[in-house]
């Protein structure tokens, strides 16, 4: 565990996981409503990294991924990301559009559906966070990236300071082999601000 996280009191970390749990539950409910399957949630974990975020989600190291990325414009500095394997994204788009797609057919319509799914799940997770902590977040429009793992999570967002994943939550669609990860990536400054808000609240 990083120095940053070990410096966070246990009670604050527990509270942060609880807040993340609420947000993940909200995101899972939205996903289930859209796709019609029960969504299994893994308990969110807190992690921290410096410059190698890809290592945090080893499941996707060997696969092409689809990432929906949404930046926070104000409230906090950072971004939220929904990550699926490309095959998983195609499976989800199948369900959303109610038509059978193959890899070649993962075009604008399918990508629009996945983008909207990402927007909704990220809104559920981060919106709950904002509501509970009294932070007002505003968002940039989400972007979709279909690619290999070389820029997982970071994309074109480079900062000189270390970044922290504060939440990494897995959502698995029951009855099929589709997993997705939601992550919130924050600057150190925003991470400290967030933990301070939690400390004040408990």
């Amino acid at each position, binding site marked *: 565990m990083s120095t940053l996280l070990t410096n966070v009191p246990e009670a604050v970390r527990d509270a942060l996981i609880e807040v993340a749990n609420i947000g993940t539950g*909200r995101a899972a409910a*939205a996903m289930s*409503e*859209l796709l019609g399957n029960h969504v299994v949630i893994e308990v969110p974990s807190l992690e921290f990294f410096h410059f190698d975020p890809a290592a945090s989600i080893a499941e996707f190291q060997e696969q092409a991924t689809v990432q929906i990325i*949404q930046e926070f414009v104000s409230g906090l500095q950072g971004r939220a990301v929904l990550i699926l394997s490309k095959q998983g994204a195609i499976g989800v788009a199948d369900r*959303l*559009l109610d038509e059978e797609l193959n890899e070649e057919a993962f075009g*604008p*319509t399918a990508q*629009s*559906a996945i*983008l*909207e799914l990402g*927007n*909704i*799940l*990220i*809104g*559920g997770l981060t*919106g*709950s966070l*904002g*509501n509970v902590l009294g932070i*007002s*977040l*505003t*968002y*940039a*429009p*989400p972007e979709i990236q279909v690619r290999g793992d070389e820029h997982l999570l970071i994309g074109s967002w480079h900062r000189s300071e270390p970044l922290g994943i504060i939440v990494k939550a897995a959502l698995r669609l029951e009855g099929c082999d589709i997993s997705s990860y939601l992550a919130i990536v924050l600057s150190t400054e925003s991470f400290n601000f967030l933990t301070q808000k939690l400390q004040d609240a408990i």
Partner: protein
Amino acid sequence: MTAINNLSVLISPNLLPYLLHTCSITHQAGFFSTPFPIMKIALVDDSVFSRKQLASILKDRFGEEAELVHFGRSAEAVEAIPTGDYTAVFLDLVMPPPDGFATLEHLRQAGYERPIIVCSADIQATTKERCRILGATAYVEKPFSKEKTFAAIEEVGL
């Protein structure tokens, strides 16, 4: 006009002015026919998928009574809606500029007084309050469902 007045017991009072307006035009033209559509609803959302979902729900609710006009770019909606005789607007929030907040503000400043229903995945209380202050009539949380959308439709009296 007797036939039209008799119709008023069968239809929503909110729709009557539009129906009467349209009927009077067809009546003056020398014929009487059932005028469809009687509502014109703008769907402003940069997501094609989202607009399709909403359109499907609105079709279920209004059938041919509503003409649904899609705007994938909010800049076009800002130009067209104030002078376009739209019955209501469904407006996404997170879009390329102008975003939903700016669009909402612009439409109200331009004198558009009919219902604007904000639709967003942003579930923050502060966002909903900001929309209310800017003039939103109702707020629907995404993902869309019939229940949530119909409730908003009832709320604004469509």
